[in-house]
């Protein structure tokens, strides 16, 4: 635990909340210009402040850096424990960037109750960042729940026609998941401490604590039976967030009804909470159960990839199409992660960023035409490349990023996931690869129906191309897409320690042959003697 610059992490986390509170008290509801400016400044400053994390993080340093610690609820052993590793830093940077973009892109889209809207948006940002920073289970849980509230209001107040239905569905679904997660947390807590007599659970008798780094150390001692139940509890919580098939049905409704910025945050960051939870908690804390769950999660992920793609293909609403494409892409991430090897996990982590960039941008782009036409039906469009050439170009680049074209980000992540999946089983790789073809099919069909063809619809003839502000909401994401596609090394460097540590912790439960990263050697019988072919021990 390295406490240097611990204050910085706290500052980044709470600045949006503090800013939101200042806005509540010091800016009048009617002063819309000042509200927008203030929100943009707060989110912008937060983004700028988060940048040093990228440079200051030391890959050879302690596991968790920028840490800070304080006593909190001493009676149960809960403490205020903040700290991040490279993996969390990448997600925090994604959050601050998308946070700023969401504020900036909402200037003209939101036309009523602006102050509350931006206040909720900023509060949401603190909630999300808190999840990535927390190293104490109670703190983690608090932020996890806090995050739900602003999102609920963002969908419920500023959403589309079925906003209440979508908001309540979103809230209930995720609440069910997080309650189960809480049960799992408590089980782990009691096992570490004195056990829980009521259910006949014997404990290790350590000092009671919710500290995640401490619980990592006892993970190998948790009996497989208990691991199974805790894993199941965590699984429900995280799988709903991801969302994994068959828990995904809240997502399309939430996406379709949420305002654009809500969709961007939802796809870009909120879904990553689930995959973050798996990598941060399930895998290292419950290695035995993780290894046993591999075939099941593999099947669910493969079904998600194919099912999501098929359903996306048939959608008539652009936002719904993108939402189902998310289901398919998140299936990819889960598949790579549960290949439980180095390239798969790396690919999964990178793909979390990629999905945030590409799908976030797709929602922004769909939001831009929605703002002009107040219609998202694909059939309402056609041939608009003629009137909106810049828009068509941006959309094309993001489409290509989403379907994994080399030189763009999606390719690197997909390819590593494929390698990981392939090292696990060729059947996984085959299905994953088929997902790539399906992905191209529905995205290109969408592109064709919206941008190609005759500009027949009168209402589209006067569509205006992107203005400067709109362009600048997309350009940073395009820049990132190319950066990750052409030179992903800095990203891999930063996630390296996390990947190593997770693999190390999972490896206690892995059978010898599944270990790590097969390379340099051959698994053919006639070359099985090459010993250096196994890494990651």
């Amino acid at each position, binding site marked *: 635990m390295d406490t240097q610059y611990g204050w910085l992490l706290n500052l980044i986390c709470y600045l949006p909340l503090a800013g939101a509170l200042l806005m509540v008290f010091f800016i009048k509801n009617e002063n819309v210009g000042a509200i927008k400016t203030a929100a943009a400044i707060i989110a912008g400053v937060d983004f700028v402040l988060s940048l040093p994390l990228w440079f200051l993080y030391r890959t050879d340093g302690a596991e968790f850096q920028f840490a800070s610690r304080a006593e909190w609820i001493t009676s149960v052993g809960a403490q205020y424990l903040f700290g991040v590793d490279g993996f969390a830093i990448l997600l925090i940077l994604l959050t601050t960037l998308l946070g700023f973009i969401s504020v900036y892109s909402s200037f003209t889209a939101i036309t009523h109750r602006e102050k509350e809207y931006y206040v909720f948006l900023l509060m949401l940002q603190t909630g999300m960042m808190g999840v990535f920073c927390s190293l104490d289970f109670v703190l983690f849980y608090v932020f996890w729940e806090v995050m739900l509230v602003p999102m609920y209001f963002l969908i419920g107040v500023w959403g589309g026609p079925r906003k209440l239905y979508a908001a309540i569905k979103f809230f209930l*679904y995720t609440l069910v998941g997080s309650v189960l997660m809480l049960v799992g947390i408590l089980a782990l807590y009691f096992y570490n401490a004195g056990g829980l007599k009521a259910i006949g659970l014997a404990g290790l008798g350590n000092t009671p604590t919710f500290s995640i780094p401490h619980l990592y150390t006892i993970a190998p001692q948790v009996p497989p039976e208990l691991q199974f139940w805790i894993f199941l509890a965590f699984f429900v919580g995280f799988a709903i967030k991801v969302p994994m*098939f*068959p828990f*995904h*049905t809240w997502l*399309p409704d939430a996406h379709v009804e949420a305002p654009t910025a809500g969709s961007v945050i939802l796809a870009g960051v909120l879904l990553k909470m689930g995959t973050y939870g798996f990598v941060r908690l399930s895998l290292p804390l419950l290695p035995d159960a993780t290894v046993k769950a591999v075939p099941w999660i593999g099947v669910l992920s493969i079904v998600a990839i194919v*099912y999501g793609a*098929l*359903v996306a*293909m*048939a*959608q*008539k609403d652009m936002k719904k199409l993108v939402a*189902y494409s998310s289901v398919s892409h998140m299936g990819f991430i889960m598949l790579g992660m549960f290949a439980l090897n180095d*390239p798969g996990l*790396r690919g999964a982590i990178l793909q979390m960023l990629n999905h945030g960039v590409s799908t976030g941008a797709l929602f922004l782009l769909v939001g831009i035409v929605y703002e002009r036409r107040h219609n998202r039906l694909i059939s309402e469009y056609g*041939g608009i490349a*003629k009137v909106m050439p810049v828009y068509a*170009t941006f959309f094309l680049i993001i489409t290509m990023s989403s379907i994994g*074209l*080399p*030189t763009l980000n999606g*390719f*690197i992540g997909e390819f*590593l996931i*494929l*390698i990981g999946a*392939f*090292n696990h089983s*060729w059947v996984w*790789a085959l299905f994953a*690869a*088929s997902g*790539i*073809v399906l992905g*191209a099919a529905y995205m*290109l*069909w969408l592109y*064709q129906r919206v*941008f*190609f*063809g*005759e*500009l027949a619809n009168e209402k589209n003839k006067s569509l205006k191309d992107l203005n400067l502000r709109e362009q600048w909401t997309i350009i940073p994401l395009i820049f990132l897409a190319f950066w990750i596609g*052409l*030179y*992903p*090394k800095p990203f*891999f460097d930063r996630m*390296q320690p996390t990947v190593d540590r997770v693999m190390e912790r999972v490896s206690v439960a892995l059978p010898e042959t599944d270990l790590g*990263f*097969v*390379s*340099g050697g*051959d*698994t*053919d019988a006639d*070359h099985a003697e090459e010993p250096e072919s196994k*890494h*990651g021990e």
Partner: protein
Amino acid sequence: MIDVCRSLPIWLIPALPAAGFVVLALVGARFPRRWVAIVGAGSVGAAAAATLCTAIGFLGRPPETGVIEERLWSWIDVGSFEIGFNLAVDALSLVMIFVVTFVGFLIHVYSTEYMADDSAYSRFFACMNLFVAFMLMLVLADSLFLLYLGWEGVGLCSYLLIGFWYSDPANGAAARKAFIVTRVGDTAFAIALLLLYKHAGTLDIQAAMAWAADNWAVGSGIAVAVALLLLGGAVGKSAQLPLQVWLPDAMAGPTPVSALIHAATMVTAGVYLIARTHVVFELAPTAMTTVAAVGAATLLLAGCSALVQTDIKRVLAYSTISQIGYMFLGLGVGAWSAAVFHLMTHAFFKALLFLGAGAVIISLHHEQDIFKMGGLRRRLPGVFWTFLIGSASLAALPLVTAGFYSKDLILWAAWSSDSGSPWLWAAGAGGALLTAVYAFRLVFIVFFGDERGHVERRPGLLILVPLTVLAVLSVVGGFVETPSALGHVSFFFDLLDPVLPPAHATVAGHGTEVLLQTVVAAITLLGVGLAFFLYVRRPAIPAAVKASPLGAWLCGLWLSGWGFDTLYDRIFVRPFVAVAGLLRADPLDEISSSVARVIAAGNSALSRTQDGRVRTYAFGIGLGAVIAVAVVVLT
């Protein structure tokens, strides 16, 4: 001079067109047309100059290892998975970059006039430049991973250019079809890479090939699997059976696009890929046989289809599929250099034919139906003579055309190589007859006979000069490699020798070689004569054949490319769309909705008990008391 050339960085070659793309994409729309033309064609011209320089350096002072490598940056470096952004020039890539930049430059020059009236002039050149850049990356890549980058990149450009005139939904559909069909092949390619990587631990081409040669036994299952998967990628890109269906539709793009991408360069990438990974194929005899069989079948099927097409560009499209079939036939029998040789000569004459067809098409105001053309040899003499040379080269007229020398080598290898057979030779010879007939059918219908179609404008110099240069290349391009009976020049094979081993021949009878050459030459001349007889002397005969029931059926079948589109539509597209349609409403949503419904039903059931009537409550209290007492008494 040579030292200067050797010090020229290789990355300049793809970087120049890439820079052209960036300039045109960012500010091209604001440029005057002249500037767009200068940047668009100039960047490729500069790349051609750089290629020439590299070639001088390479030939003047050949590198000891046979390869000039250039490391740019580390692209992916995670654990032991390391992929550099590195380029390599060996003899094979030298031939390829020569074809890509020179033919590409000529086509760009041609396009400056051909596309002059198009409103999206800069978009056209931006995409073309991007294509050339990706194609050069593809052939200069020193790892299969980077090759895959170029491979997908050219696919994207192909997509953008087929759908260039996107206002017509048919063009957009053709573009999408091309992208998705080739992506099926690309997926096989990607799995081949994974498999190779899992075993060899590297995707560096030279290292992986060396590893495979050392570690895999001939005929081992894994080698066959990798080779077949690579073949899957190759048949997608090169429009061979069973993934050939996209290429005829790809003719929806502007004609220079068809010439550059769908004839001269991109579609031959599959041939390049197999030649590049020939080590794996040599380890997999089954895969080699498959390659040869795919080539032989494709060249015959596509040749038949070319025979009955009425759209000038579709004739040429099927002809391209058929000619790439020859290249696959050559690859399949281990005649690597011969296949690459045919790739080069084909690039010359097929680009020439497409550009000639384009000149005809714009002269007749975008008319593509050959039966609405005729007698054009007097109106468009420059186009006629060059087109004639191109057709002669395509038909492989003996001695005087480049196509003859390259096709001859493939046919000889099909007969004489270890993995060859008389059947493969017979397929190639049969294809030669078909080629001669359809090539000259086109010439006779379009340029001879009664004058039909009104020539609106004659092509200018920017069109005629590229045609002339390509016509010259279509003749002299063959003299770099001639058979032993005809001077025995072996410059081309000597150049490629360090990269591509010669075909293993068992029955290398000199007399047989000359005999077979004579037979094929005779077949070709017979085909030309037949075309002359059928389409100039007795045009009533083909018309009568077409009118007969069997002829009509066959014509319809061939016209539609043997019905593959219908077949795929029935077995893939429709079921897929139907399943997707069934899932539109996401049936799984029912699970959560039904939970909600159960709770709602429970709510309404229980709320019914709260009806405000005293007797209901009294009944409830009584019932509860009875149950409570019963429980106490009975337990």
